[in-house]
């Protein structure tokens, strides 16, 4: 506890309140209000405007549940693969010289400066039956292998787009780790692998959790990546919501809102579960 913390602050301070006002207004307008709209559309009858739970009950239908399950499945696979790629990568980057580290991080972030749509279109181009990948396979007399329109293409798209969000928080935790802790583990008899398992991994849990959150949440709610890489043949929950809302009818609004509502609960539950694992760690701010 620092001395500054011990000083009692006045409960209400006008300058502080004013400085927070723009952000507060923003939150109310663009976060709280839309959430309330979702709740409103999800919980009222589209014709009469009376409170009802029938909209929510209606979306528990086999076709929606199947799509919901598929979304969860793809998001989980993408998150797991991202973690498997990102952790060793982040570890490698922290072992580089400082100059090279900045370079590696820059290279990693570079695709993020390009719009997600453009990135996804370029990936689509690569995966097409006459795309670069199939041309390469063709050299060995294989293919053309249909990649577009498969679940594989969608998962690949998710990994491709969201990998940096997994690497960065893990890298940030690993790069701040005290090198002496690794030396201490080695000093106390740990081989490099044992050091990774007993010291480095437990101390980077907070980064892993941030990474999982930052990949899983956008993955499960994505709509553009899936519809684009499957040419609309495989729908995820985000696609369904988007379609319903863009129909602009009272009926479709309540379906879209109900699905959003359920997705939101799903995300909150999964966040709660992942955060339980990181309870002992000091959380990394997202």
């Amino acid at each position, binding site marked *: 506890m620092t001395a500054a913390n011990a000083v009692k602050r006045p409960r209400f301070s006008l300058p502080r309140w004013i400085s927070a006002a723009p952000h507060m207004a923003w939150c109310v307008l663009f976060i709280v209000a839309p959430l309330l709209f979702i709740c409103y559309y999800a919980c009222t009858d589209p014709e009469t405007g009376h409170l009802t739970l029938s909209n929510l009950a209606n979306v528990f239908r086999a076709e929606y549940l199947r799509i919901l399950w598929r979304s969860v499945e793809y998001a989980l696979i993408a998150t797991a693969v991202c973690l498997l790629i990102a952790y060793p990568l982040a570890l490698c980057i922290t072992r580089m010289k400082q100059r090279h580290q900045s370079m590696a991080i820059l290279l990693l972030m570079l695709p993020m400066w390009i719009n997600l749509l453009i990135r996804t279109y370029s990936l689509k181009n690569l995966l097409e039956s006459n795309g670069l990948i199939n041309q390469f396979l063709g050299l060995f007399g294989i293919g053309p292998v249909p990649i577009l329109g498969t679940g594989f293409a969608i998962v690949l798209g998710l990994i491709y787009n969201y990998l940096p969000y997994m690497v960065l928080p893990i890298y940030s935790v690993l790069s701040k780790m005290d090198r002496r802790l690794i*030396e201490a583990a080695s000093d106390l008899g740990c081989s490099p692998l044992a050091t990774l398992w*007993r010291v480095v991994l437990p101390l980077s849990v907070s980064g892993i959790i941030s990474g999982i959150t930052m990949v899983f949440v956008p993955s499960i709610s994505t709509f553009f990546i899936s519809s684009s890489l499957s040419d609309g043949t495989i729908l995820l929950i985000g696609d369904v919501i988007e379609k319903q809302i863009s129909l602009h009818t009272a009926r479709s609004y309540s379906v879209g809102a109900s699905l959003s509502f359920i997705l939101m609960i799903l995300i909150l539950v999964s966040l709660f579960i992942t955060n339980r694992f990181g309870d002992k760690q000091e959380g990394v701010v997202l």
Partner: protein
Amino acid sequence: MSKLIELVNVSKSFDGEPVLNNINLYIRDSEFITLLGPSGCGKTTTLRIIGGFETPDSGEVLFEGQPMTHLPPYRRQVNTVFQRYALFPHLNVYDNVAFALRQKKVPREQIRPLVEDMLKLVALRGFEKRNVTSLSGGQQQRVAIARALINRPRVLLLDEPLGALDLKLRKDMQNELKNIQQATGITFIYVTHDQEEALSMSDTIVVMQNGVIQQIGTPTDIYNEPKNAFVADFIGESNIIDGVMRADYRVSFDGQVFKCLDRGFAANEPVDVVIRPEDVDVVAPEKGMLRGRVTSVTFKGVHWEIIVDIHNFKWMIQTTDFVAQDSEIGLYIEPDAIHIMKKSEFSGMYGDYSSYSDELDRLSDPEADETESAEGEEEEES
């Protein structure tokens, strides 16, 4: 006592900057040896080479006569107490101390009594469940010692382990460390820049500067028979005066010839003369061998520390009798208080008390500061 660890012609540089220059050193079993020197002198690098965290560019490290230069740290019978402790923040006190035993796959039921013994040794019983980050510096220090000792290493390396503690606690821990060392019989290799700490704890002191060992000896040897101006200045306070050996047992400085106990120098060889401040007697001006004017008087509790100007050379003298500022006094120096050193690269760099400490000089010198901090970081990082 046999040689446990031996460093043979060890050299090391970082980014082309030499840090260790041809170090030769052996460490005997069960001794308490201290590597002493200012920051950037290479003492920490030497320790890290013994611990296995650095590999020397050339030279060999032997353990009981067997080369261990390229053994990784986890294969060495050496454990380390790190600077700022490096305790595992995700483990509690018990788990930190038990860490090495778990790695060795010692059965659970054997670990508990061993950990408890260790915590008893460092006076931390009852702290098992505590989070290490909630402990005070002194307590973390003890956990670090317990964690390193539980393996019963042949050698314990300690890298400025008391640096972060305040004075009183540091004195207590010095005694405790010495007691632990004697109780366990484990060889301690201790790194510090605190000369008092080194003198009071060590069996052997290795004084280092500029990546070179300046002197190896017992604390009394190092204090009474410093080998060059650097050692004389770094260990305790000293007046270092230019002198000339006239003959065996005869040295001249300040225009006079004094009796001394040293011999074996060439006739008229220039030398450095060391006189410790506590070895000079203050007498009436007419009775003194030298006379001068007191320019400053500082009360130190046990004694007065006075600065005396003799022919523009400022002497420091410690006396239990009060002397007034600006008074004329005489100095009387016994032959056994005069110590003669050969001239060295450090001659002329130390010895005058016109400005109080050369550390302060260095701090106020922007150029020297730059090189100093660069070296310090070098050592820190590596």
